Each structure stands twice: as structure tokens, then as C-alpha cells.
């Protein structure tokens, strides 16, 4: 049963520290998405990759956030320095862009708490 995996599942850190979240997309998928979910803002798209190339990161605060895909099996989202307002659940999703309209598959999320 293919799944998107994310690590860590939970992260508590102090303000100013660097946070790195990792995602392994489903094998064979060529699109990867990073979302942030909070009670106040709901689900927000942070970044979107296709074939490892960043296509859209307009939803990401670029002064402190960065997203990369070092290879097809790993996507990373980094926050440096972290702030309390970054506390949220961060989801990675992957999909297959094949000319059709295909659904995204979500990982279990990383719950980040910044104190």
C-alpha cells in the first residue's frame, strides 16, 4: 500500500531554531506539494514541485522558509529561524501529473510547535 511518509511526526522547538521537515512521495509520483494547516487560516499551499522543479512557492514566506527536492524520493521544507507563528501542521502530498486530472495523496503531517 503506497503512502506518502513524513518525518518527524511531531517537533517542538524554541523560537530561532532551524526546523527541517522531510517527505518521501509515493514512488513514481512526479508532483509534490507542501501545505500548512492551522485553525485560523485553514489549509494553505506553500510550495509545489513538478519533476523536482519548483513551480510555485508564492504561498511561502521566503525570508525564512525554503523548499527543495534533492532527489525524486525526498522533499524538504526548512524554516530558519522559526517563530511561534509557524506553529501548525505541515502536510506533504504527492501526485502523478500525466495529462489527466489526478488526485493528490497526503502524508500524515508534521505537527510543529515553536515556543
Amino acid at each position, binding site marked *: 500500500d503506497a503512502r506518502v511518509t513524513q518525518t518527524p511526526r511531531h517537533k517542538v522547538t524554541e523560537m530561532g531554531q532551524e526546523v527541517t521537515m522531510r517527505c518521501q512521495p509515493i514512488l513514481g509520483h512526479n508532483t509534490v506539494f507542501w501545505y500548512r494547516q492551522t485553525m485560523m487560516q485553514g489549509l494553505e499551499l506553500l510550495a509545489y514541485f513538478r519533476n523536482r522543479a519548483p513551480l510555485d512557492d508564492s504561498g511561502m514566506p521566503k525570508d525564512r522558509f525554503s523548499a527543495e527536492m534533492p532527489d525524486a524520493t525526498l522533499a524538504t521544507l526548512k524554516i530558519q529561524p522559526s517563530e511561534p507563528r509557524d506553529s501548525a501542521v505541515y*502536510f506533504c*502530498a504527492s501526485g502523478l501529473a500525466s495529462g489527466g486530472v*489526478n488526485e493528490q495523496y497526503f502524508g500524515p503531517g508534521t505537527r510543529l510547535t515553536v515556543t
Partner: protein
Amino acid sequence: AQSVAQPEDQVNVAEGNPLTVKCTYSVSGNPYLFWYVQYPNRGLQFLLKYITGDNLVKGSYGFEAEFNKSQTSFHLKKPSALVSDSALYFCAVRDAPYGGATNKLIFGTGTLLAVQP
């Protein structure tokens, strides 16, 4: 710009009764619509999608959705609700800025479904 609206923050239904979770959309071009479900402390799970064809789409866990072009709606339905259906439900539409297609989805704000025993 593409958008979806979920007019109800919460829907309450008794177990065994039919349920409907509402979604309306606004798109330029053909709408590609999705429903996802999120259980507590979990990621979103895909339920079903409408691309073209039959207006009644069947999905996972006994859910179905009816596409209505004249009312620009894509309501999620189930004939008989279960307590285990209690979760947060999201409607989504494929983003197509300036008429071009992307793989991005635009999600609604979510509707909390509470099924009482």
C-alpha cells in the same frame, strides 16, 4: 480565478439518516472537482473526483457526489450516515489560472460532519 465555497462550518446528522455536505464552485473553463476527508490527527484522504461524464460520481466509503452545472454545485452525499463518518470534509477544485491547467488544487474551508449515535 477558481474557487470553491463550503457554506456550512458544521453539519449534524443522526446515524442512519442521509447526509449532504455542500460545495459550490466558481471556475473559468471546465471544472475538475474533488472531495477529501480528514480524520482527527490524520492527513487528507481522497474520496472522489469529477472530471467529465456522469453527473453522479461514486467514491470511497459509500460516498457519492452530484455535479450540477446549472447550480455550480458539487455536493457530497451518503444515503445512511455512520458515526465513523464524523470528520472534516474538504471540497477542492483544480487551479487553472488564466485558463491554463495546473496540478494545484484550491481547497475550501472545510465542513465538520458530526454524526450522532
